[in-house]
């Protein structure tokens, strides 16, 4: 069966229970605030946000695959488009764009202009070095690992740090091909 082309995400959105984003935004903010109090070091908070994201991503991917009807992506380029257009839309209600592909198609940027995590958020000066949205990098990394792609996800631009958009660099490190438990005899 030919792989499905990435859809706009709207029919899938209808399959998924939606809730007011405010609860999500405020909950995330309260979590970050509490983490800063309890862990004290900004680097440690960044690390924990990423870990939390990873743990979320490895489970969220199941819901995504079940609800979106997307079948295996042919290549990493398609994967990136699906994350940007269908994945983000399904969960966060916004879409991202995919840009800046490198020559061998293993590294690209996901750019978000709208980001529900950061509505009404301003970072005080005491939070220098905080990647407020670091949970997102973990989610992407975790989700892709379940579908056999090992990636490195880093922040290039962060609006809370004064940039004009949110840009994540996603680099494919290793693709583990699907292995079957037995070989066909010729």
């Amino acid at each position, binding site marked *: 069966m030919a792989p499905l082309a990435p859809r706009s995400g709207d029919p899938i959105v209808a399959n*998924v*229970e*939606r*809730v*007011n*984003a*405010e*609860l*999500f935004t*405020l*909950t*995330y*903010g*309260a*979590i970050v*605030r*509490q983490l800063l109090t*309890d*862990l004290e070091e900004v680097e440690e908070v960044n690390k*924990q946000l990423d*870990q*939390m994201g990873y*743990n*979320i991503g490895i*489970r*969220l991917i199941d*819901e995504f695959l079940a609800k979106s009807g997307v079948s295996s992506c042919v290549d990493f380029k398609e994967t990136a488009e699906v994350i940007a257009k269908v994945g983000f839309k*399904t*969960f*966060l*209600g916004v879409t991202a764009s995919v840009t800046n592909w490198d020559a061998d198609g293993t590294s690209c940027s996901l750019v978000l202009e709208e980001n*529900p995590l950061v*509505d009404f958020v301003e970072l005080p000066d005491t939070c220098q070095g905080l990647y407020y949205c670091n*949970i997102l990098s973990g989610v992407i990394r975790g989700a892709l690992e379940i579908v056999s792609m090992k990636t490195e996800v880093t922040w290039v631009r962060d609006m809370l740090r004064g940039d004009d958009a949110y840009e994540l660099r996603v680099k494919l490190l290793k693709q583990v091909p699907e292995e079957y438990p037995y070989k066909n005899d010729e």
Partner: protein
Amino acid sequence: MGREVSESCVDSLVIEMVSAYCNRFYASKPELAAPRIEAIGYQVGHQLSERYTIERPRFSDHLEAIKFICKDFWSELFKKQIDNLKTNHRGTFVLQDNRFRWLTRVSIDPSPANTDLSQEPSLATDESKTAQATSMHLYFPCGIIRGALSNLGIPCAVSADISNLPACSFVVRIKA
């Protein structure tokens, strides 16, 4: 306005937060995790309550404020109202949700990543582990209610009662 996210975003965020606090940060001291989970809820409840009452006059008495929590506030959060409200008219209110949405998400996480191998084998049965995970999880909505009421000028203590599943009751004790 009216931006929406998937319910699973909120669910998975809260579940992971509870798990991080219980199994990673304070794995050997759950009594330290609980107040922090509650504090996160408090923050959320306080801010939500502020947003939802911005154009309203102040509530005339405690009962009116509690009713707001039971109806408008609960509807915004859970798309339904509190099913049953009881009071002893002496500062204690019991808010019963017959099918609390967030209770349906909690399950035991059997993932080996969460096991602290340096600890002695736990004697807890599966049932008591579920009970513990559930009660940890419920600190969050208890905090939300406490934060919301605090914003309305009503200091109180909130606890959850799940002796009558699938109903969940939140017991609000107003501080004199």
